């Protein structure tokens, strides 16, 4: 089967605009009446739900930022009563506060629908064996793909992340046909496979859906060659719904956005002006079918472009280009969102002022590694090795708790981290993506 839901995936533009308009009007009414945050924001701009009559009117609406989710932590932006919420997911936040997202039963259904479209784009059907090697839990990756795979009717292997040797053994023995994980983990698996002496010809693997972190065309080529599969880029963020927001088709020429559910815009991240079609800028989403956590003009901080031309695959939905960067300082390390400010907040606990630090991200054997250099200050320094090593250990632990990933902590001498205009450089990303 080529499409999961051709009615929407191959819908004419005018018809799509009509669907979006009706759903947008409905969503704006809902958030205005149910979420004080949105009502106040709209009132401040002098807008009422009645002013929104078309997709064009989107630009009249205020933006929503990740910070708004933190400020209203945990449930302040929910538009449905908590009794209607059947699932909660969360992602890491800069100050230790998580970004919490809630789903009603209908939202879970919508999510399964868009994830099913994603998997179908990658060639999945009811005969597929789908190995979900994204993490299960608060992270939306695992369960998001899982529900999509069940919706398609495939056999789901819910193995979650880690234990690579077992992953490969199961992939071989169970006859996995589609692999879902981060692209760097796919490469890591390929390497481990070689070490185990398992050849790609021994696998039934045909394709993979890879996302949750940036990756390049070169990485795609390598994954495709080493695993002998079609590698499909997928896009999603938990705030919008999770995996399933957009996906490549077999043409691999941009990611089809499921725009009957999520209306995209491209804006200039500085002036916040909407940019004309084809321009490069920050991707903004408005969800038009969500009940639990509808988002109006959510600033993703991801840099992309939009292409409205009909795709060779027959789909008419707008395509976003592979995300080429961020409009803020967020890093994605092993699929986890990391902000330098998180490291800063951890270090603040180790002295009166936060010491200068430098985050060095690299990719070793296809796995992201994070090293954090911390300038030793008087508060941390001692004449005893044990005490300094204790400080190092404490920082490492605190970083792991706050960031959710391991990092190597290296103490360096004061003033050795390069500064420009008095401000230290915070991040060096050596990954060749």
């Amino acid at each position: 089967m080529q499409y999961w839901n051709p009615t929407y995936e191959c819908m004419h533009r005018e018809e799509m605009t009509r669907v979006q308009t009706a759903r947008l009007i409905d969503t704006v009414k809902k958030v205005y009446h149910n979420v004080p945050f949105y009502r106040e924001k709209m009132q401040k701009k002098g807008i009422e739900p009645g002013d929104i009559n078309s997709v064009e009117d989107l630009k009249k609406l205020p933006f929503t930022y990740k910070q708004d989710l933190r400020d209203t932590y945990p449930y302040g932006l929910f538009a449905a009563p908590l009794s209607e919420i059947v699932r909660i997911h969360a992602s890491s936040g800069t100050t230790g506060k998580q970004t919490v997202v809630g789903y009603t039963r209908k939202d879970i259904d919508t999510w399964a629908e868009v994830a099913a479209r994603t998997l179908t784009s990658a060639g999945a059907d009811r005969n597929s064996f789908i190995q979900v090697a994204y993490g299960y839990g608060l992270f939306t990756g695992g369960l998001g793909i899982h529900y999509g795979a069940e919706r398609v009717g495939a056999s789901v292997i819910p193995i979650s992340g880690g234990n690579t040797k077992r992953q490969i053994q199961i992939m071989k023995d169970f006859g996995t046909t589609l692999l879902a994980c981060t692209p760097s983990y796919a490469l890591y698996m390929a390497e481990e496979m070689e070490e185990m002496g398992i050849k790609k010809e021994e696998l039934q693997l045909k394709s993979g859906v890879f996302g949750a972190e940036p990756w390049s065309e070169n990485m795609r080529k390598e994954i495709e060659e080493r695993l002998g599969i079609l590698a499909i880029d997928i896009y999603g963020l938990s705030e919008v719904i999770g995996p399933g927001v957009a996906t490549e088709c077999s043409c691999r020429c941009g990611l089809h956005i499921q725009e009957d559910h999520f209306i995209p815009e491209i804006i200039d991240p500085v002036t916040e002006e909407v940019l004309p079609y084809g321009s490069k800028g920050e991707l903004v989403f408005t969800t038009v079918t969500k009940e639990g956590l509808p988002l109006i003009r959510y600033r993703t901080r991801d840099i992309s472009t939009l292409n409205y031309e009909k795709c060779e695959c027959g789909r008419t939905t707008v395509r976003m280009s592979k995300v080429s960067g961020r409009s803020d300082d967020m890093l994605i390390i092993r699929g986890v969102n990391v902000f330098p400010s998180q490291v800063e907040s951890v270090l603040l606990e180790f002295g009166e002022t936060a010491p200068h630090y430098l985050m060095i991200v690299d990719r070793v054997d296809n796995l992201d590694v994070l090293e954090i250099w911390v300038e030793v200050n008087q508060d941390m320094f001692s004449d005893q090795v044990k005490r300094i090593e204790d400080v190092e250990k404490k920082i490492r632990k605190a970083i792991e708790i706050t960031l959710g990933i391991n990092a190597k902590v290296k103490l360096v001498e004061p003033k050795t981290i390069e500064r420009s205009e008095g401000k230290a450089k915070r991040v060096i990303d050596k990954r060749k993506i």
Partner: protein
Amino acid sequence: MLVKQISVFLENKSGRLDEVTKVLADNNINISALSIADTTDFGILRIIVNDPDKAEKVLKENDFAVSSTEVIAIAVPDQPGGLEKALKALNEASIGIEYMYAFVGKTEEEALVILRVEALEEAADKLVKNGVKVLSADKVYKL
């Protein structure tokens, strides 16, 4: 009776130790004892100098992470069993030694040793009571 020791944080990379000795030399500070504790990533340089307060100040001005710690300096007979007497006294009093190192020799008959222990005052007291020669700060700085 306690002597001020200066400790400096050093990364394990070439030229760092030279930087410290240069700052001290430029400020006319003399080093009389020195030890380095090192791990794979960093080292701690511990020194006894003739003017610890000035050393601390100039090193800080030159952006080193510096701390000063009180230690005990003892003189032991330069013969077998010389150090044993001092260590036995501490052991009997259950005082643990965090680290120790020897002086650059200045006298022919005695070896000079720096001790960093948990209970400084008590340790110094026990050493004196057991006939170990504990050196005063003044004397040590002049060495």
